[in-house]
């Protein structure tokens, strides 16, 4: 796909709001690539920041209990797409979404969807670690407290279990009541992972979780991702190709608001169908 093409479409589509769905469908017949046991389905998803289109007719399936990576150059819309899955873009005033995302066959944009409920099922880990200015214990227990759990013994169990899952327990079990702000960057990020999985979501979104970390901390988190995929469906954004190759089962290559190619990671890195993808993964641009 040429880089100029989406631009052109953007200009063409932007002023029109509804009723344009058939045209691109005709123009772009290839539907999402089928995957075994899909959990999340994205259909004809477009997203606008004001008049600026950030995502264009995305179609994809995300397989259950696998790691799916989004790669692509900065500003291509990886984070934007990721934040659609838990509707975090709703917070942005002039953001408008068209199309459909369904999880387990149920649309997430339906008016009867409780957004807090959705976010409990779709957890998220951010690029910059963002522990709450509270104790380590309270950080992990936050989701449970929101859900109304008050019993100390239950909370204790949740905290211990998830800190262990996030491979942080051994490092912090003697200072659970210290401020989370005192942890190192890598520990903070693992704490955020523990906090997110403590809610027992179906899907775990990770937006460049290692971009601010040193190699050792990065390796720890990568191990963790591989560990966690037995339990969660993971979608991870990264601009580090080696990382995508190491941790993911499926990879989507995005470019200017579009998915250029989506396939198994093996295929994307060893035998991509498109020249553009090959150029990117081999480091010719990006």
């Amino acid at each position, binding site marked *: 796909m040429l880089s100029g093409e989406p631009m052109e479409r953007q200009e063409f589509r932007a002023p029109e709001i509804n009723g344009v769905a058939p045209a691109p469908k005709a123009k772009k017949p290839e539907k999402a690539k089928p995957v075994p046991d899909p959990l999340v389905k994205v259909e004809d998803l477009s997203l606008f920041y004001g008049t600026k289109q950030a995502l264009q007719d995305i179609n994809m399936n995300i397989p259950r209990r696998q790691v799916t990576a989004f790669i692509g150059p900065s500003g291509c819309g990886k984070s934007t797409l990721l934040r659609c899955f*838990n509707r*975090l873009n709703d*917070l942005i005033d002039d953001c408008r979404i068209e199309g459909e995302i369904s999880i387990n066959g149920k649309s997430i944009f339906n008016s009867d969807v409780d957004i*807090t*409920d*959705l*976010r*409990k099922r779709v*957890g*998220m880990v*951010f690029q*910059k*670690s*963002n*522990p*709450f*200015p*509270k104790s380590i214990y309270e950080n992990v227990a*936050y*989701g449970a*407290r*929101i*859900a109304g759990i008050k019993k100390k013994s239950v909370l204790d169990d949740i905290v211990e279990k998830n800190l262990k899952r996030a491979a942080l327990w051994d490092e912090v079990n003697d200072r659970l009541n210290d*401020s989370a*702000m*005192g942890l*190192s*960057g890598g520990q*903070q990020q693992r704490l*955020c992972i523990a*906090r*997110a999985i403590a*809610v027992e979501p179906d899907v775990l979104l990770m937006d460049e979780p290692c971009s601010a970390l040193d190699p050792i901390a990065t390796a720890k988190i990568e191990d963790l991702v591989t560990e966690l995929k037995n339990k969660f469906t993971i979608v991870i954004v990264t601009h580090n190709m080696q990382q995508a190759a190491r941790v993911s089962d499926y990879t989507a290559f995005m470019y200017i608001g579009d998915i250029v190619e989506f396939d198994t990671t093996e295929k994307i890195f060893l035998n991509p169908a498109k020249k553009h993808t090959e150029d990117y993964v081999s480091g010719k641009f990006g």
Partner: protein
Amino acid sequence: MPNLWKAGDAYIWISGLALMVTLVMIGGLLFLIATKGLGSMWPADIGRYELRDGSAYLGQLRARESVRGGDGVSGSEFRVKLKIGNRDIYGLDFKWINEGDVKSRDYPRDAVVLERHEWGDYHGYLKEIRKNGQVIPGTDPEAFSVLLGLIRDANRIHERILKIEKGEIGDINYGIEKQRLKLKGLAVRGEHNPAKEAEYRLKIKEYEGRYKTSEAKLEALYAELNRNEAVMLSAGGNEKTIPLGKIVMAHRPNSMGFVEKAGFYVKRFWGFVSDDPREANTEGGIFPAIFGTVLMVLIMSIVVMPFGIVAALYLREYARQGVMVRIVRICVNNLAGVPSIVFGVFGVGFFLYGIGGIIDSVFFKEALPSPTFGTGGILWASLTLALLTVPVVIVATEEGLAAVPRNIREGSLALGATKFETTWKVVIPSALPAILTGLILAVARATGEVAPLMITGVVKLAPDLPIDGHFPFLHLERKFMHLGFHIYDLGFQSPNAEAAKPMVFMTAFLLILIVVVLNITAIVIRNRLRKKYATSAV
């Protein structure tokens, strides 16, 4: 030299110098107030000054200054200010004496200073004590300690009298007033209920009976109080008989060692802090003023915190950021600059006459036309101050909220928290140090404010504290005393300004002390929170 400007060294020096000057000024002010105030309480030696014209005074040296261009007759260069006490004899507590007029000066060890309930201090010698009709001459070596013992007894009786007056008789007055209001309430409502009426009247009778017994008790105590007397001789040889019940404390500064003086000082200081004022506030303590100031600031804080925080939360978190919000913000900022007396006038119009009037006409109909809430009181004064300081809290809170990083909020929302839960559990705790900074500023401003209080509830002398043993214990409608107003009253409204001067300094000192203590408390809490919620990552 131009290098110096370029390198920026000169700017550093200038700002350093400016800081120095400011610090020296603040330090100097505190030093002046502390020395003048604290120093005046020290039991200074008392000198006997014999003048050339044959008169003599017992006085404590308070000031010494040169007389330039003097009358030229005395030929002296300096004059001294003595505190001579004995206002009932001399008319004034202080006297300026030219040093040239002094024939001799010594410090007699048996010079006595009596602190009295009336007429200020007495300086003189103990001639004799009349105890139970028996006479102990002042020359008896044990005479002074006998005097001290008797004064202690008298003070105990005094306490009992006070307890009866404030306790028993206070209860009785309170009860009678209540029954009277019930009676009046019947009349106001046009209810004709002879049974109830009779019941109320009977109760009043009962109270009156109790009053008789209390009164008799009081009379007996007063008689006992004034049974013993001290006969004193002034420096000029005037004899004066003083009932011991009229004496608060006695000491002989010239025969006291340093340790003894220090002990006396502590006792006196404690008395100053914990006693009620006497003699139009110029003597005694300032406890009610301290109490009123602190209580008012507390009530103000309790009111201003939720209001300021809620307003700031709305402005920053919920309102649509636009022209309207910007205008509101500008208004809030300007509100902080409105002269406080304007707030006072508003408080009078809105709180006293408006809300207070409504409360009176709904809940306190019986007491009308005398107002209950429709007049100045600690609640209205606190609310007026809350209004005055709410912009400070809003601005500080808004800044704190704006500083809470967006990704922390998103982190909370992404866990399925609602916006309210996020605000309550994450945003406010993170902004708490900033909010407390706002409270510190508000408290500092409120404690020092006087003008709006003078018209919304502060009085020169309040008969009762706003908290006492009568239900509902906290009486928000009562008038109260305030340190700031006390300073004004002592220094500028007192009939005896010279005598009140040390009190002015002491009161100012305590006011500053209270501001500092309140601030330090808030700062300690804030630092605790900062440590707990340290926001610096990694």
